[in-house]
């Protein structure tokens, strides 16, 4: 793969085919002009099957980038080049289930092949909600609703999965379970993933590569070269976390924190 226009190392797919053309290509993407532009020239490539986490503080433009890739920003001015595959699935922060439709109808929304009902049931089973086809969305907990949203995105067999803080509204325990689920699903279906998050640990746990966005520009890209069993208390994990927190402008170490508290 050719070197990145910004001189950064080109991403590699997580394993087999490094020669395959990238699934996503973003070149010099600008959204909103002037000194207050939301995106000020972003370049990004995502390889087939690669899991990329897009990290950044609120208002850094990460959702804008995701919405641009999802084709949901027709009303926003800007320029640049985007290439995405045809079958893109989007998971939002809210589960966005139609409240008036049963779970199976929600999952198969927009699918018209005859087999889509079967595949919808399979997808529900895959996210641990087998047999719940006829339930209404209001009968679900927040975590379950987000599982259905994942099932809805999988049924489409996406080459690219865009996830906009999908676990941001869940409690901490549910979030951990959802991390496991998403890793399993990614392992099985291998779509390229762009996960927008502001949770550093979530990014390290899930992603092959973490991209830090700041003031509408990519401030840092780092590959997470950890094995599959990512233990947040491990030394390597802590090192990546420190690196990323530094890029995000959080430089306080735990010991300093401790001292400050004691002197207060």
């Amino acid at each position: 793969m050719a070197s990145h226009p910004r001189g950064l190392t080109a991403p590699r797919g997580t394993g087999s085919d490094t020669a395959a053309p990238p699934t996503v290509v973003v070149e010099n993407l600008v959204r909103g002009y002037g000194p207050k532009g939301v995106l000020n020239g972003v370049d990004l490539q995502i390889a087939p099957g690669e899991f990329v986490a897009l990290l950044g503080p609120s208002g850094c433009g990460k959702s804008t980038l995701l919405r641009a890739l999802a084709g949901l920003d027709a009303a926003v001015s800007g320029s640049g080049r985007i290439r995405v595959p045809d079958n893109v699935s989007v998971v939002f922060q809210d589960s966005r289930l139609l409240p008036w439709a049963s779970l199976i109808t929600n999952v198969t929304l927009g699918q018209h092949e005859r087999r889509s009902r079967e595949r919808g049931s399979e997808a529900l089973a895959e996210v641990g909600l087998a047999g719940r086809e006829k339930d209404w969305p209001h009968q679900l907990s927040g975590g379950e609703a987000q599982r259905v949203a994942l099932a809805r995105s999988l049924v489409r067999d996406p080459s690219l999965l865009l996830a906009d803080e999908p676990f941001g509204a869940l409690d901490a325990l549910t979030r951990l379970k959802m991390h496991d689920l998403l890793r399993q699903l990614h392992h099985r279906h291998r779509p390229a993933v762009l996960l927008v998050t502001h949770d550093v640990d979530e990014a390290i746990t899930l992603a092959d590569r973490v991209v830090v966005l700041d003031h509408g520009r990519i401030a840092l890209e780092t590959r997470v070269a950890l094995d599959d069993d990512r233990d947040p208390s491990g030394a390597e994990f802590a090192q990546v976390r420190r690196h990323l927190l530094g890029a995000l402008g959080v430089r306080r170490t735990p010991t300093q924190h401790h001292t400050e508290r004691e002197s207060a």
Partner: protein
Amino acid sequence: MTAAVATPPDVDEPSTLTVDERPVRRRLGLGPRRRGAAALGPVLLLVLWVAGSLTGVLDPRTLSAPWTVVSTTGELLADGRLQANLLVSTQRAALGLFLGVTVGVALALLSGLSRLGEALIDGPVQIKRAIPSLALLPLLILWLGIGEQMKVLTIALGVFVPIYLQTHAGLRAIEARYVELAQTVRLARVAFLRRVIIPGALPGFLLGLRFAVTGAWLALVVVEQINSTSGIGYMMELARTYGQTDVIVVGLVLYGLLGLVSDGAVRILQRKALSWQVTLAD
């Protein structure tokens, strides 16, 4: 105040305290609900009616006795006049309702889903809304005569306004995030209507339908008392010329029942169709 309240509680043995020491305030709320209390007013009215008729305070020429009304209902049923008039009235109301609902929904969809439609339709409907349907009656009589067309059209004109307003409002209240979702799953236009727009606007439509049903009976009363030769209104109008207050009361009761039953039917429809909603009432 009781003596127990004045005594300070025993700090060492709080478990021996048996006196409820909650401070008593004057209650400003309504107090608990009593069963069957809703029937009190109507029953009292009936008792007054019976008493007035028995003692002769109520002249039969002013208001017939309750038992006369009951026996008159029996007679009207026996000679078939009641059924025949009820059928005609129901047909008029149903036809007007059907026409009004169809037009109201069609206009709401056109105006709700296209900017051009809104520009063309919404203004005229708002103007129509400001004119009571019954005020159009003289014009409609001139145009259509005093036949069935005029009657059905008057009812339809009263019906389509609430249907349009509520359906349009329901449609416009559909959250943008669902439209966004429909875009991301690439929903085709027809599927978008079927899966998002119609179910999303349904609560508004059903609310409009409740207004519409009541409005249909209201309009019916008026059109049937003008130059009509059949229907409940005609039956009542005829009774007026003969001074038969019992027949008039039968008509009134009938109108009331029709209104109640049809509103109840729409409410059941509402409950069934909106079973996905969890509301305050559940």
